[in-house]
């Protein structure tokens, strides 16, 4: 696979996310998603901190992996990786076989739409191309979501783990602000 010149990704701050789901809604509205479809979704997890239980949130969409499983399994070659690392799905090529959905370990792809074709986050590539921010990032009221270059984020000490985040060999392009509190994950 041709390596992209750079790799864009999301930077998420779990310390500050308030679980309001504004990112989820902004994505649904901007991409005019059908009911029940959410390319981005916010999950809630329970942790114990200073002997108190509290909720933390994780906002996830497609992670535009550096080694995307969806792209390697799609028999119609409907996925491509742009030079900036965004994994793009050409829905005209999709025949709805579902291979990509099964292979993505992040549940980022759905075939539940009316046309039964695959769909997922495209990091609002068309908005970025005209200098705008992705809808989810623009919609977050506490700036817990940001757009980063993964190399830069790594150099700045951003981390690859967060509560509820599943590691994988796909090299997901998401980074997290380091945790500033010690807590025990309860589920």
């Amino acid at each position: 696979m041709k390596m992209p010149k750079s790799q864009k990704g999301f930077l998420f701050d779990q310390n500050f996310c308030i679980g309001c789901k504004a990112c989820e809604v902004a994505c649904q509205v901007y991409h005019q998603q059908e009911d029940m479809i959410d390319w981005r979704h916010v999950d809630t997890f329970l942790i114990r901190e200073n002997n108190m239980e509290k909720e933390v949130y994780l906002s996830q969409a497609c992670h535009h992996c550096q080694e995307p499983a969806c792209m390697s399994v799609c028999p119609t070659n409907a996925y491509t990786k742009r030079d900036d690392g965004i994994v793009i799905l050409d829905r005209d090529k999709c025949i709805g076989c579902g291979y990509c959905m099964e292979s993505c370990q992040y549940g980022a792809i759905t075939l539940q739409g009316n046309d039964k074709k695959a769909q997922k986050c495209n990091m609002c590539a068309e908005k970025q191309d005209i200098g705008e921010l992705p809808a989810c990032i623009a919609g977050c009221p506490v700036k817990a979501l940001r757009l980063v270059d993964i190399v830069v984020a790594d150099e700045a000490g951003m981390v690859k783990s967060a509560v509820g985040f599943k590691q994988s060999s796909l090299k997901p392009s998401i980074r997290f602000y380091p945790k500033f509190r010690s807590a025990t994950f309860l589920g």
Partner: protein
Amino acid sequence: MSNTVKAYHPLEMSFHKNMLRFVILLIISGLPFFSKMFSFIAYGVGYPISEFLGNGQPLSSGLAFLRVIHWSSGFLLAVISVVFLFAMLSKINRLSIWPDVWGVDAIFDGIKQMRLHYLEKKSGNFGKMNLGQKASAWVMFFTMVLLIISGVLLVLRNIDGSFLPSDISLFLRNIHTVSFIVLFCVLMVHVFFALLPSNIHAYKAMFQTGEMDREYVKEHHPLWYNKLK
């Protein structure tokens, strides 16, 4: 007494021929989904279709068409298999897929007889089918059952995306793939042995006459011959 013995029921011959056609169709139409190495099949089928539709998507058009072929030939194969199984229920013992003798010793003896026949070119003490043929018949039966069950569930999931969670459909797809690989290997061995010159009598019986020479059966399939007497 006739010089020939009835080796295959017309239903067995017809089922075998049709199964062969459907299996070839299933393999050709399934390979481009099995690995991208075989996309050329989809391109080959897809170019005329995409020209006709004017959609400029030869690969997708070819795969969509092959998927229809795969589903429909799988469905037809499942239907004829079920009909065949029901029709043969009363003659199930004549299918000769059961061991003549049970036990570990019988397995070792079966291997010895096959070695005698295939390597030393002597007559083995066989029933209608030897140990290898019986074992491969069972492997083919079970892998086909797995392929059909997993295939039907995957088709249903394809029609209704919420029918199965994606980890279950991934598991089913793996079952489908592994069963196909096992079946394909056994089929290749089956075809190889079926085409050996020494197998010409059985080959003709299966594809043409349904009968085998009595003297040949007496010499090469003594256990079967004893049952016929």
